[in-house]
């Protein structure tokens, strides 16, 4: 930002300055003290009265002389008072010398002391001579004169001695003064040096200060320019919340001029009223504890208030600038109204689009549901009508109705399954199953279709040590079926081969379905997995469909954590590859349901269904299976029926008028009417949340309508503990599927051809001397057909013939026996 100049002085300089500042006052005090002493001494020297002592001493001499003169001048009595006065004055001088502390030194000295004692003694003697009557004094004058003869010398001597002492004292004083003066000189010199240093330092500081000030002012003007040209509002606020700086962008954003804003409380100016309390709390918290939330937290979204009173979104970045005790908050604020508006618009657009998507999907799902129930009724009615021995023409019409109805149901189921997969529901549990068995069964079921189209459908399994795996058999079945059905659908002639192999020792199993069909153009190879995709009409080849097949397959595969891909070349064929994790398993296989319920016999079943057609249909199906059926048309009747009779199983519709299935089961369980009896829900609702709700109400399980005969039989076996009579004919399912797949008309035609082919083979076998390749091939072909029709024994026999030695004895009797059995079974379907 700016070039940071170190504003501090070098450490040494600072120490010198500090020391100078400490020494300076000491020196000053010392110099003042010494100066004062010098003044005192000088004053003492300048005063003439300093020689007071000398004066006193000399006065003593003067008074001695005056006294002497007075004594000599005495002629008569009148002169005596003058003498006495002079003596008194002389006396007072000597007394002073004796008494005054000034003369202590003199008195203590040997010479001075001796002299003074001499003088005092004489003074006393003279006082005795003088303090007498005038007559006596006149007589004493010669004596006084005698005393005074030596007195003069001694007084003089004393005075001289005093001078000596005085001179010595003066000399001591002079020396003392000299010493003080020399001390003073040093002190003043020191003072001068220190002052000089201080002055130098101050000069340096001044120069430095000026440089710093220039730097500062440059930095400040740069800063000023930056702040002024900022597109974000910049506010500087003190700890009381008063605005210190308010840049141009802030003026534009908030609508206040800088002059209006500066000095104002920020919270009153630009914080919306509903945020002020929070702001004050935050500020207080920070000032008390230093805890920060917004400060230094980067960009924070808040709301600001314009002068116009408009509250608008702002992005705020707040930081603290602290210099000593002076702390300010620097806020960068950006008006993000436009951005927020744009974001909101985008969000709304997206939400609208999603809502539209959902609504479409919901509509599709609901419509499909709604279609399925009446469709079940229609198909059921067709079933029943076909049993009423219709005329040939009627049978054709019924057939047309059935085909159309079944196709429609197929489409509806596709859509429902797609929405189920879309919702991420995968109700199927991981199970242990034999993959090879499953795939073989699947291929067998498709052999009829392949056969009818003249397509060779083959399977190659390479699953390694064990074909038993853990996975979702139904999902795999469906995905693989979709691929095989598609391949068969689009292949005019040639072959469809299914390859299944485990990739090395991994969990991955690869399923490949290859056909010799028309192929898919490169650009369409991804699109085919999308919903409702049907390729160009030329590839449709009159195949009806929703275009959901591959989309569903893809979803199923993805739900199993698998992958699906497609390779194709136009004119050559297509190869679909699924790779699905299917770890090998050692756990026991699930036993077939029928094996678990070996019992057989009639069960008492209560059907509760408000739809007359569906109820009739269910009744019919159960009666055909030999069950003892009771019907109820609503919840109330169901409760009554449960009260009156006892049942092995109750099948109950959920949505019924007045008392619905949930309420009915609640009443039945509350009154303990069907203790130990399972109640199974029948519903058209496939949504998982509905299932959860239903199971919670106490239903043993939920069956989604429509229910097939086989499912019904399984359900009875599972829930009523009885195996229905239908289970006696295990191969029936195959031929039913065959009829379903081809439609009765074509199926019957196929059966007739099949019977003729078998008769021809029998004739050829009985006449041919040995087993020719053509015969073997025919046996192989018929074995495949037999598998499709569920003729297990016949198929095995055909396979034996295919593999037999050329000259092996043919057991024609066994063939006749097995064939007659198969023919009897087939005739049941051929004449229908």
């Amino acid at each position: 930002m700016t070039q940071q100049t170190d504003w501090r002085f070098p450490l040494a300089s600072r120490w010198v300055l500090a020391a100078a500042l400490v020494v300076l006052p000491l020196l000053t005090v010392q110099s003042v003290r010494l100066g004062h002493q010098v003044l005192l001494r000088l004053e003492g020297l300048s005063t003439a009265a300093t020689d007071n002592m000398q004066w006193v001493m000399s006065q003593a001499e003067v008074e001695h002389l005056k006294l002497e003169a007075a004594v000599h001048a005495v002629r008569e009595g009148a002169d005596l008072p003058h003498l006495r006065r002079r003596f008194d004055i002389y006396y007072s001088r000597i007394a002073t010398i004796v008494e005054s502390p000034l003369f202590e030194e003199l008195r203590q000295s040997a010479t001075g002391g001796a002299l003074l004692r001499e003088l005092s003694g004489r003074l006393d003697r003279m006082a005795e001579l003088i303090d007498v009557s005038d007559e006596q004094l006149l007589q004493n004058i010669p004596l006084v004169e005698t005393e005074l003869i030596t007195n003069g010398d001694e007084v003089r001597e004393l005075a001289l001695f005093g001078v000596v002492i005085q001179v010595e004292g003066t000399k001591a004083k002079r020396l003392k003064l000299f010493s003080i003066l020399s001390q003073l000189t040093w002190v003043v010199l020191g003072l001068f040096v220190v002052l000089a240093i201080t002055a130098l330092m101050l000069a340096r500081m001044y120069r430095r200060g000026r440089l710093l000030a220039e730097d500062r002012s440059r930095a400040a003007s740069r800063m000023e320019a930056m702040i002024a040209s900022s597109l974000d509002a910049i506010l500087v606020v003190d700890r009381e919340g008063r605005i210190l700086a308010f840049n141009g962008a802030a003026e534009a954003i908030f609508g206040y001029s800088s002059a209006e804003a500066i000095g104002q409380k920020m919270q009153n100016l630009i914080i919306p009223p509903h945020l002020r309390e929070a702001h004050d709390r935050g500020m207080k918290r920070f000032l008390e504890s230093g805890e920060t939330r917004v400060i230094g937290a980067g960009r924070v979204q808040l709301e600001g208030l314009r002068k116009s009173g408009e509250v608008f979104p702002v992005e705020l970045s707040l930081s603290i600038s602290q210099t000593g005790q002076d702390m300010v908050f620097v806020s960068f604020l950006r008006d993000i109204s436009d951005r927020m508006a744009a974001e909101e618009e985008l969000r709304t657009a997206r939400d609208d689009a999603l809502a539209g998507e959902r609504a479409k999907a919901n509509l599709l799902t609901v419509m499909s549901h709604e279609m399925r129930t009446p469709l079940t009724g229609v198909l059921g009615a067709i079933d029943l009508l076909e049993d009423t021995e219709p005329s040939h023409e009627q049978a054709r019409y019924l057939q047309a109705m059935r085909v159309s109805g079944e196709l429609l149901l197929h489409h509806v189921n596709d859509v429902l399954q797609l929405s189920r997969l879309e919702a991420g529901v995968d109700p199927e549990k991981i199970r242990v199953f034999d993959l090879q068995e499953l795939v073989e069964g699947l291929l067998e079921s498709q052999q009829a279709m392949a056969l009818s189209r003249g397509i060779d459908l083959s399977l190659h399994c390479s699953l390694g040590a064990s074909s038993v795996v853990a996975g979702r058999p139904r999902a795999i079945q469906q995905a693989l079926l979709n691929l095989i059905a598609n391949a068969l659908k689009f292949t005019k002639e040639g072959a469809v081969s299914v390859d299944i192999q485990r990739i090395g020792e991994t969990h991955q199993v690869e399923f490949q379905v290859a056909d010799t069909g028309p192929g898919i153009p490169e650009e369409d190879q991804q699109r085919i997995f999308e919903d409702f995709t049907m390729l160009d009409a030329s590839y449709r080849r009159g195949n009806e469909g929703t275009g959901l097949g591959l989309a569903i397959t893809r979803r199923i595969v993805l739900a199993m954590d698998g992958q699906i891909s497609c390779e194709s070349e136009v004119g050559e064929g297509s190869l679909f590859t699924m790779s699905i994790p299917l770890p090998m398993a050692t756990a026991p296989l699930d036993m077939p349901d029928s094996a678990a319920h070996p019992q057989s016999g009639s069960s008492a079943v209560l059907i509760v269904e408000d739809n007359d057609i569906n109820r009739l249909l269910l009744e019919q199906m159960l009666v055909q299976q030999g069950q003892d059926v009771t019907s109820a048309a609503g919840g109330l009747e169901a409760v009554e029926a449960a009260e009156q009779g006892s049942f092995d199983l109750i099948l109950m519709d959920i949505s019924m008028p007045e008392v619905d299935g949930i309420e009915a089961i609640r009443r039945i369980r509350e009154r303990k009417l069907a203790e130990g009896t399972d109640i199974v829900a029948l519903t058209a609702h496939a949504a998982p949340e509905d299932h959860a709700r239903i199971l919670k109400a106490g239903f043993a399980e939920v069956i989604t309508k429509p229910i097939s005969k086989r499912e019904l039989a399984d359900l009875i076996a599972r829930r009523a503990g009885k195996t229905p009579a239908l289970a006696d004919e295990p191969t029936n399912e195959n031929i039913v599927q065959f009829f379903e797949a081809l439609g009765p008309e074509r199926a019957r035609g196929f059966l007739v051809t099949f019977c003729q082919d078998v008769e021809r083979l029998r004739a050829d076998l009985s006449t041919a001397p040995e087993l020719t390749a053509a015969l073997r091939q025919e046996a192989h072909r018929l074995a495949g057909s037999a598998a499709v029709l569920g003729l297990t024994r016949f198929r095995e026999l055909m396979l034996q013939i295919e593999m037999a030695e050329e000259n092996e004895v043919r057991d024609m009797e066994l063939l006749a026996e097995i064939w007659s059995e198969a023919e009897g079974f087939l005739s049941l379907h051929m004449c229908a």
Partner: protein
Amino acid sequence: MIRLSSLLFALALLMWPGAAPIAQAASDGPVLLTVEIKGDDPQTLAFTRADLAALGETSFETETIWTSGVQTFTGVSLQTLAAHLGVSEGVLEARAINDYMVEVPLADAVEGGPIVAYLRNGQEMSVRSKGPLWLVYPYDSNPAYKSEAVYSRSIWQLERIDVQR
């Protein structure tokens, strides 16, 4: 300087008798102090001890550089005396028996300042003991009085004051 002063004083003494009328002391007793006021209205005043005492007696204790031990001085304060004389500025010329003369600034005549003492330790002062009057300062109570200048003004054996009014 001092000697010159003494000479002038001697001359003044010679001229003195005709200079001004000599006032009689207000009470009987020996005259201790003679004050000559010079100026437009020359006047000579004489004070006995009783006259001085009548102006207002005051006393203090102090040590001096001429005596040993604490002394009690009693007399009239210079302030009172100056007021009585009606002088407030200039200097007094104080003279002693032995012709010693010193100039005392009237600025010294303050409350708590010097007194013209006539008693020392309750005793009248003989000439032998620096009497009969002594201008003493309370040296102990004010350090400023412990100076050579003040010592020189502390005139003893005082007998006369000349002052210009």
